[in-house]
């Protein structure tokens, strides 16, 4: 149960090796000792390192196996966090794939993998988590969307379409849960320099995971439903959404 000044006690991260998620956990907990963090991710070096990094900051990280495309695995991971003792204050839906865009729109397996992970699994986890948070009468979901879902671009529209779907689902989920004491926060970052974008040329207004985390935590504590990172991206995207296609497709984005 979170306290009056927003200190949380228990966090579940689905996609527990996400750099944005880990930066958010650090920012949100202010490194307050004893916060329980469940990192749901594939087993391996990265998960071990993520847990060690949180432990070193005085938190208590628990690793659980999580395979987004395996529904039973999603159910097990979520159950283990919610049945471990106290209430879960925050759930981050932070798993996702960027994929190879050029392959993704021409290769059915590559396209469907993006859809399965970024959209279908995100919806499945959303349904499971919503039921848990409703039952405890409080809590928050942070869902990682993307500005790529706001207006599809030639350069990554398969990824963008999965994020558009996720965005629509969690927007509606926020409305559905509004009277249940559950906040759903959609996060629409622009280009973030992480493992996922390693090797890509940085786009304008690019961000670090810490900058995104700052935006997320401020939005969470202010009770917002949608945040953009950087916040100015909201107005950039608003303009881009309204540009005529002839102009939009010629932009170097």
């Amino acid at each position: 149960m979170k306290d009056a000044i927003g200190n949380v006690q228990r966090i579940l991260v689905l996609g527990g090796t996400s750099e944005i998620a880990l930066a958010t956990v650090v920012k949100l907990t202010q490194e307050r000792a004893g916060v329980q963090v469940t990192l749901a991710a594939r087993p391996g070096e990265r998960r071990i390192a993520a847990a060690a990094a949180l432990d070193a900051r005085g938190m208590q990280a628990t690793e659980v196996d999580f395979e987004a495309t395996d529904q039973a695995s999603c159910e097990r991971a979520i159950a283990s966090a919610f049945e471990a003792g106290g209430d879960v204050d925050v759930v981050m839906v932070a798993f996702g794939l960027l994929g190879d865009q050029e392959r993704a729109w021409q290769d059915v397996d590559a396209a469907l993998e993006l859809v399965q992970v970024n959209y279908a699994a995100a919806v499945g986890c959303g349904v499971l988590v919503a039921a848990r948070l409703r039952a405890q009468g409080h809590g928050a979901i942070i869902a990682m969307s993307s500005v790529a879902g706001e207006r599809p671009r030639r350069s990554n529209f398969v990824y963008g379409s999965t994020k558009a779907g996720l965005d629509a689902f969690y927007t509606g989920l926020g409305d559905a849960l509004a009277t249940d004491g559950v906040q759903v926060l959609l996060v629409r970052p622009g280009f973030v320099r992480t493992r996922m974008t390693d090797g890509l040329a940085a786009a304008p207004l690019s961000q670090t995971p810490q900058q995104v985390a700052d935006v997320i935590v401020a939005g969470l504590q202010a009770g917002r439903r949608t945040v953009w990172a950087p916040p100015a991206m909201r107005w950039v995207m608003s303009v881009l959404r309204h540009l005529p296609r002839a102009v939009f497709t010629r932009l170097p984005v």
Partner: protein
Amino acid sequence: MDSRRSLAGWGRTNPSVASVRPAGDDAELARLVTEAGPRGVLARGLGRSYGDAAQNGGGVVVDMTARNGVLSVDTGTALVEVEAGASLDKLMRLLLPMGLFVPVSPGTRHVTVGGAIAADIHGKNHHVDGSFGCHVLSMDLLCADGSIRRLTPESELFWATAGGMGLTGLVLRATLRMKRVESAYCLVDTDRCPDLDELLSRMAEGDHRYTYSVAWIDCLARGSSLGRSVLTRGWSATRQQLPSRLLDHALDFRPKQLAVVPPVFPSGLLNRATVAAFNEAWYRKAPRERRGEIQSIAAFFHPLDAVAAWNRIYGPKGFLQYQFVVPFGAEDALRRCIQMLSDAGQASFLAVLKRFGQPSPGHLSFPTPGWTLALDVPIGAAILGGLLDRLDEEVLAAGGRQYLAKDSRLPSTAIARMYPRLDEWREVRRAADPRGVFASDLGRRLGL
């Protein structure tokens, strides 16, 4: 009809959604308790605890205010039997004309008897009369198995319930010993104290002569004025002490409501400058020394009740109340706490200081002999800097504790250090409620 509602404490900080049911008769309540789901059941009165004590997210919250009957009054023995949902306001309106006053009154009349027992509340007379639970002769407790037990102060469960924050069962009725009074007025002495030293010495040497004693401290005062304050102490006025114009209405109790704070209150109005101006005016208007002033019970005990919904002045982010007690002898710790608050320049109104007398027998009762300070803290940037954590440390190091009825932010690790009888309480609770039917957000947050 969907009974799910969002509930918050008086500080309006961390709400949760629960299924809110109006209290029916005993049988109906027993059914509710025995059929409770995994999130359990909790009684709620008038919602005046500041934090999450009267919330039970995802579970059932029983609104006890419908069970507000006064079942019997014996003016000879001053014993009354009341339902748990009856408010102290109601008891005063009904019983003051009969010459009976509540034995303990907090800073508001708008609390229920059930809530007063659950928090084992204290008042300005704690140094002589003890806590609310000390004036309860018996209570009927609806237990987790659906049975109703009549508890008296000889039983352990009685003292686990008084101060037990509603986590041992549902109080249905209680028999209280009221205080006999000749009037609905108090005879009040006021002293203005220019600094903390003077205040503490005046209280230490003079409090025992008064039934009621409390000091209001200006926490924004600095330097040599640190702890400047207005000390008000008094007794219930006898008929002989009343001026002749009041004699015909000596026991009339008609508190006035002066204002209601609107639902949306401009949050910028409460800032350091306005609060400092308010505190200054309040200090200057107090007489340097006045003896024997006649004040109504409402004016003396419940000045804030004149402004309905005053909790809205802190804006949508809400506020918390920080109340701690440190033992006698730890005056230096008290001074450091006031210094920290003064340094932080918190836009807080006055803080309230009082001396506690004998500890209450309740396992989790807050009062222990010492100095207790309470102040409102708006949720804002200043407290995010760890001010309250540093205060916690100071209080803990001095062997002090905080009041659960006010708490909304203590770390669970602090509780066992503050309440050494916590394990004893847990034992009694486990025996009375092995399945943990009675639950609250406070209980979950603190791991009680």
